[in-house]
């Protein structure tokens, strides 16, 4: 972007000789006497901020004030918010937790020879069930494909709507939200919690703390408990878990996941995102100037003032931000969004809800903090600073009657559809269609053949040559089948099966258990006078006569250089 970039705007900064942080920098606007308003505008701009509660909140997790690593972490007490994003987050939380806890309990009838759990990772039998799909270990590329789709999907989501994964669906976010619900229910909202935390250890405090941690541990145990149900028949396992007869690995898994859920969700919280998680670093690299991010629009908010009336009476310009700190108080990450985009921000949009509530009370337009693209933000900053030549002057973005000027850039859904978006969508869809095609056309009957290497061939007493093969029949459906094995080619050749009394011939039928592999030792014999060359090829064809499924394998038949 020409001229103005939020992160490196030396042109403005040097010009104004102000501090590099936009908020701090723009606070100097008053003293510089910029943006003097006309008397008429002053009347309209007198904000009635008596109704706005001012909160004592500090951005304790912001990089500039964060404590060194050896110091104790400053606790964050996020205030409860209401609003459309909060409602959306409740919905996402209900859906994601619902999926996680309920999926193992869904049933799916696969007949008598396979488990009836809709989603099951049967590690013991090495079978993976997902509703109507069953995969064997050698088909694990479907999972790899899904992971690639998840990766490309993340590119798509991040490049369009920013860190939506972090803010809404990441398990860390969802579980911290859940733990905060418990904390609020027991200890009260922000102020009550801060007071309790600072207060001495009384019986009441002890009781509240014990019950809070106990409920957290129960949630942790339920989380770990739900995890193991994906790996075994859930109704059976839950009985075993409670009667103490489940496998040790189940208890260990539950214990480990209980510990991690409790520690990450209850104790570590935002530290997991700030210090442990690589995602913020990766996702930040995927954003560009057309990605939506949670943005404090200082082009309309600055100069912020707690005493708008006084400032305006003094004839100075004043922005929409009344510095009530609502956005800081609700932030679960403990940052101040007005400092600009930062690594710690998970874009949960709760500050948008908080700020919109304040703007409603003040009778101002919503969206002082909003989802905005960097290019829109930059355009509006150019407008508000008269092309970067002055500090922010709110009157430049408004018309004489106090409305936004036509030149203010607003978000439109079209803006996020750009070549990059289509490339990601195309890749994502192509991989998805490829997987779907492969899934719909995959073989459920397979044959694999391994030719004996030692000896490669055996001369029999009548001079004929015999080769040995290990033939593996894969019946990949949960129904018993009778498979007909036929050999094609190799003139005069005949098959016989070790341990099976079928007569030597060019075809035999053999029953295969449901959902199992059957391994056969097959000898193929060719009379001496029919042998043409030291290596001939022929085909094993396996067929299921009832479903017309078939598979083939081309094998080699070895004979001595000179047939006897």
């Amino acid at each position, binding site marked *: 972007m020409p001229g103005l970039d939020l992160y490196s705007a030396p042109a403005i900064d040097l010009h104004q000789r102000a501090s590099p942080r936009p908020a701090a920098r723009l606070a100097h606007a008053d003293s510089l006497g910029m943006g003097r308003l006309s008397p008429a505008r002053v009347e309209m701009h007198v904000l009635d901020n008596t109704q706005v509660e001012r909160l004592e909140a500090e951005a304790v997790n912001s990089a500039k004030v964060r404590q060194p*690593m050896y*110091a104790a972490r400053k606790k964050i007490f996020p205030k409860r918010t209401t609003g459309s994003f909060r409602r959306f987050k409740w919905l996402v939380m209900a859906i994601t937790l619902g999926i996680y806890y309920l999926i193992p309990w869904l049933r799916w009838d696969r007949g008598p020879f396979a488990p009836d759990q809709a989603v099951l990772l049967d590690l013991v039998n090495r079978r993976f069930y997902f509703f109507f799909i069953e995969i064997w270990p050698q088909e694990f590329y479907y999972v790899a494909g899904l992971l690639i789709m998840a990766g490309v999907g993340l590119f798509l989501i991040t490049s369009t709507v920013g860190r939506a994964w972090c803010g809404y669906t990441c398990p860390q976010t969802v579980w911290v939200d859940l733990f905060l619900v418990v904390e609020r229910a027991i200890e009260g909202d922000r102020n009550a919690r801060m007071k309790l935390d600072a207060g001495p250890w009384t019986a009441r405090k002890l009781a509240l703390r014990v019950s809070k941690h106990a409920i957290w541990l129960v949630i942790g145990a339920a989380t770990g408990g739900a995890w193991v149900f994906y790996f075994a028949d859930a109704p059976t396992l839950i009985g075993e878990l409670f009667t103490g007869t489940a496998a040790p690995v189940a208890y260990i898994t539950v214990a480990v996941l209980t510990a991690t859920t409790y520690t990450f969700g209850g104790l570590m919280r935002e530290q997991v995102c700030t210090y442990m998680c690589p995602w913020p670093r990766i996702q930040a690299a995927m954003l560009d100037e057309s990605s939506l991010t949670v943005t404090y629009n200082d082009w309309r908010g600055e100069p912020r003032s707690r005493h708008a009336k006084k400032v305006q009476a003094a004839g100075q310009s004043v922005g929409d931000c009344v510095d009530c700190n609502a956005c800081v108080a609700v932030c679960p990450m403990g940052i101040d969004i007005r400092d600009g985009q930062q690594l710690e921000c998970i874009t949960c949009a709760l500050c948008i809800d908080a700020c919109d509530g304040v703007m409603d009370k003040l009778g101002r337009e919503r969206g002082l903090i909003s989802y905005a693209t960097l290019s829109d933000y930059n355009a509006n900053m150019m407008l508000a600073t008269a092309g970067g030549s002055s500090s922010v002057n709110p009157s430049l973005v408004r018309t004489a009657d106090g409305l936004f000027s036509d030149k203010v850039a607003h978000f439109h859904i079209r803006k996020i559809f750009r070549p990059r978006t289509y490339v990601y969508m195309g890749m994502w869809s192509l991989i998805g269609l490829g997987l779907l095609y492969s899934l719909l056309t995959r073989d459920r009957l397979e044959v694999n053949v391994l030719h*004996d290497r030692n*000896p490669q061939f055996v001369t*029999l*007493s009548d001079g004929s040559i015999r080769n*040995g093969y290990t033939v593996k029949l894969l019946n990949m459906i949960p129904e018993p089948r009778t498979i007909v094995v036929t050999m094609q080619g190799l003139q005069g050749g005949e098959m016989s099966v070790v341990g099976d009394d079928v007569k030597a011939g060019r075809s035999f039928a053999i029953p295969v258990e449901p959902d199992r592999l059957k391994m056969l030792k097959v000898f193929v014999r060719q009379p001496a006078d029919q042998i043409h060359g030291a290596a001939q090829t022929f085909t094993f064809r396996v067929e299921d006569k009832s479903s017309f499924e078939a598979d083939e394998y081309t094998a080699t038949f070895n004979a001595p250089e000179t047939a006897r």
Partner: protein
Amino acid sequence: MSDEHLDEISGISTTGHEWDGIRELNNPLPRWWVITFYITIVWAIGYTIAYPAWPLLHSATKGVLGYSSRNEVRNELTAAEAAKGKYISAVESKSVSEIAADDGLREFAIAAGGAAFKVNCVQCHGSGAQGSKGFPNLNDDDWLWGGKAEQIQQTITHGIRFASDPDTRLSEMPAFGDIITADQIAQVSAYVASLSGKVQNAGLIEPGAKVFAENCVACHGANAKGNKELGAPDLTDAIWLYGSGEAAIAAQVRAPKQGVMPAWGARLGETKVKELAVYIHSLGGGE
């Protein structure tokens, strides 16, 4: 030496250590690191109490859990033996043909016999039991002493021409170089070669048939199909232990090589021999 002072640039106090004017800042370690460090110390103390750890003069402390890696191996071996137990007792009590007829038992015997074969038999018969000149191929369907499972068991148990076993399979082809003339040897060799379709000197075949009838039929039979009771090979088939063709046959008539196989019964025990017999019978030539 110990001269603590505040570093002017960073405002952090130093540890008081100084090397050539270089001082060390006293930056505390991150909390999580310190906590983890203390946890490892506690863990280590618990570990040395629970497990064998402290070296003493002649041994080491045993640890309250009583763990020992040797015991672990012993237990695993016992468990493995116990798992094999029911198969082994079944192998002991059943005959080789019964074992071969039972799917599960046959699979067990083939695995066990295959392992024993790799240790005891590959030196002569080869790792694929394919044999070599003078050492029979066990994959094919030509058996000197019989290819039924019981006959194979008998051969393995007592060996062939193995002097120290009284029940060993015994036969000896005379050295005909001392009995018949060189011409007769050439004639009979041409005849025997012709039985499996290898004709070199067609003129010698007819006199050779006469020599054969006079000298060889006692063991190899009038139709030259051999005699498994005597270990006399079938001379009409495509398999030749000491080489096909008139020259190789003549050499064997003149001064026969007599292969020896040791008796394995006393050495390996009956069960192992049965497993070997089932394995060899399964290689493809078993009758």
